[in-house]
């Protein structure tokens, strides 16, 4: 424990936190124990336990360090991989600019002494998939990465957020980050998920409710019986999309599900250290009488599978509904809805089930883990992808791919007509050759339906892995239950 620093920090007025010193939320506890320096009128300087690095947002940071003659302070707390640019098919990297960016990371990792899981190695994968699976991601840590979906790691009760390249440079040089005070938000989800609904539908439902800016300035804590009943992978899916609600981070209190997931992983504590860690982690959950700045509740039993119809993740309806009429929205949301429908080439009143995608993408840091692939494989087993539809499965990491192949999931997907690919971010953001063509429509298990996100002119509908798999078979949006 960091008693010295922690108690020194809490002795001062708690500018970063709204609760009293005795009754604190999970976020406040993790924040307080990482305060290195606090002074009135300044942001807190927080220590960073784990800095994850990938090829797209780090090159300029390393170059700036080099120019200033600064070393990396804690290479041993820094882990790098290649994910955004990497091809998911065999053969060399066809795009020379992608290759150059990957080579730059390899050179930088070597020069600064940073552990790297490069393309082609067994440890490679999406940075937010490999951190948890190797056991780097643990409760109570502060974790940063030059990627907004760093919020994923909050599923373990870590305080994890995305940062820009200047901040990457700052963390490399100092192992700390300046953080402005955050507000706390509790999102409580209660009840059993209806059949066919998954963690993805919970988070799409939350974003639909609070909007893309509902979480600005807040660290969200997801609570309630629905969240407690989810696996770690489901919790990661939810925390992953916290940024889509504008939140600075999303967290779930660690519990026995968390500990069971972490135990035995390569970088998890073991032996006596495991016992010490457990004792510490059990002290992290929000105190019963702590209060939050904002509270939202959701009844899970009301949920249905969600499908986005627009160009931001809040523009969604349930699969049983129709594309909405923009005139039913107020103010700027009305214009945004009209613009979105034009871009998406959709007409108000069209049943969601009547929309026919050209491509189905199962992958991304939101939904590319083994449970996602098992669920999707179960849906497509013994069936065939609809004629003319392209379907691909991109495992989140080499480890996920190997496990899926061990279980025979690759055969199920291939037999159904899916492409079975290598690990990476792939079509989530189209930095590698996996892109939508202009005007092409996708059903995607990823996190962003922004204009052109999956390729210039591409039209993205966000869905769960179950809906994606069923849609690939039916050729139009549908659920596994309806096949």
């Amino acid at each position, binding site marked *: 424990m*960091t008693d*010295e620093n922690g108690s020194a920090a809490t002795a001062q007025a708690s500018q970063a936190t709204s609760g009293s010193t005795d009754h604190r939320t999970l976020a406040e506890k993790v924040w307080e124990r990482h305060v*290195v*320096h606090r002074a009135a*009128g*300044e*942001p807190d300087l927080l*220590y960073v336990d*784990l800095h994850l690095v990938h090829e*797209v*947002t780090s*090159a*300029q940071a390393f170059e700036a360090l080099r120019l*200033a003659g*600064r070393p990396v302070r804690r*290479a*041993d*707390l820094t*882990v790098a991989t290649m994910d*955004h640019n990497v091809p998911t098919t065999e053969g060399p990297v066809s*795009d020379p*600019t992608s290759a150059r960016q990957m080579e*730059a990371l390899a050179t930088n990792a070597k020069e600064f002494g*940073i*552990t790297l899981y490069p393309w082609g190695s067994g440890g490679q994968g999406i940075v937010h998939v490999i951190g948890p699976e190797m056991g780097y991601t643990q409760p109570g*840590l502060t974790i940063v990465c*030059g*990627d*907004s979906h*760093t919020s994923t790691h909050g599923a373990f009760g870590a305080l994890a957020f*995305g940062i*820009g*390249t*200047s*901040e990457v440079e*700052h963390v490399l*040089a*100092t192992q*700390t980050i*300046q953080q402005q005070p955050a507000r706390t938000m509790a999102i409580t989800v209660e009840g059993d998920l209806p059949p066919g609904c998954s963690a993805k539908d919970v988070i799409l439902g939350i974003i639909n409710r609070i909007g*893309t*800016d509902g979480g*600005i*300035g807040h660290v969200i804590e997801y609570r309630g019986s629905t969240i407690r009943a989810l696996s770690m992978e489901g919790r990661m899916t939810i925390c992953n999309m916290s940024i889509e609600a*504008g939140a600075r981070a999303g967290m779930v209190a660690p519990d026995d599900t968390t500990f069971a997931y972490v135990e035995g992983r390569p*970088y998890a504590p073991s032996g006596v*250290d495991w016992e*010490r860690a457990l004792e510490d982690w059990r002290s992290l959950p929000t105190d019963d009488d702590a209060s939050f700045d904002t509270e939202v509740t959701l009844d899970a039993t009301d949920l249905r599978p969600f499908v986005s119809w627009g160009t*931001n993740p809040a523009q969604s309806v349930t699969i049983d509904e129709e594309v909405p009429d923009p005139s039913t929205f107020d103010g*700027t949301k009305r214009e*945004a809805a009209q*613009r979105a429908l034009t871009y998406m080439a959709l007409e108000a009143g069209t049943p969601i089930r009547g929309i026919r995608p050209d491509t189905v993408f199962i992958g991304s840091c939101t939904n590319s883990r083994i449970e996602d692939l098992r669920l999707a494989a179960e849906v497509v087993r013994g069936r065939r992808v609809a004629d003319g539809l392209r379907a691909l499965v991109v495992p989140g990491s080499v480890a996920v791919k190997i496990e899926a192949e061990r279980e025979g999931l690759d055969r199920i997907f291939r037999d159904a007509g899916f492409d079975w690919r290598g690990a990476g971010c792939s079509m989530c*953001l*189209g*930095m590698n050759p996996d892109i939508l063509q202009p005007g092409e429509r996708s059903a995607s298990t990823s996190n962003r339906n*922004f*204009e*052109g*996100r999956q390729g*210039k002119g591409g039209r993205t509908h966000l869905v769960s892995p179950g809906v994606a798999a069923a849609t690939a078979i039916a050729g139009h949006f549908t659920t596994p239950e309806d096949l």
Partner: protein
Amino acid sequence: MEPVQRVEGRAMPLDRSDVDTDQIVPARFLKRIERTGFGEFLFAEWRQDPGFVLNDERYAGATILLAGANFGSGSSREHAPWALEDYGFRAVIAPSFADIFRNNCCKIGLLPVELPQESVRALMDAVLDDPSTTIVIDLEALTVTAPTVQESFPFDDFRRWCLLEGYDDIDLTMRHVEEIAAYEAARPGWLPTA
């Protein structure tokens, strides 16, 4: 970083909310390993439309971008502020900003100025009506001044001080290097290392 005290200039009205960083600079242009040259990719898709405001000659040379709420949402790519800055913008005025984008702007001296929705609307109307309208953003006094609008804006004290003085964040943090070392010495041994 160069100190920033004041931005005075004409403004470009981008009357849209939830402008995400994928629109500001699409992912396929993020492969450069340099920090410069992103201006030509600014709003790369939207500017294909001849009617898009970036192509409107009347707003050429504007140094202030006026936009709707939740500007800069989505990806943490600092390439978005780099592209705005490289194109020639020195400030963005909007009703609200995404957190990471706001942070990234402050790191490079591009001012994210938050004004109430009505004031942003009034500025947009003024600029739509007369593209030669000059807007003055005074970071020292925390005011935005235009012929029809006089408004103060909130700005974090520390960030304001850093921008006014042009301080380097890493230099500032290194003043606390002994505290960092003391913190490190007290960290439990079971925490993960690579």
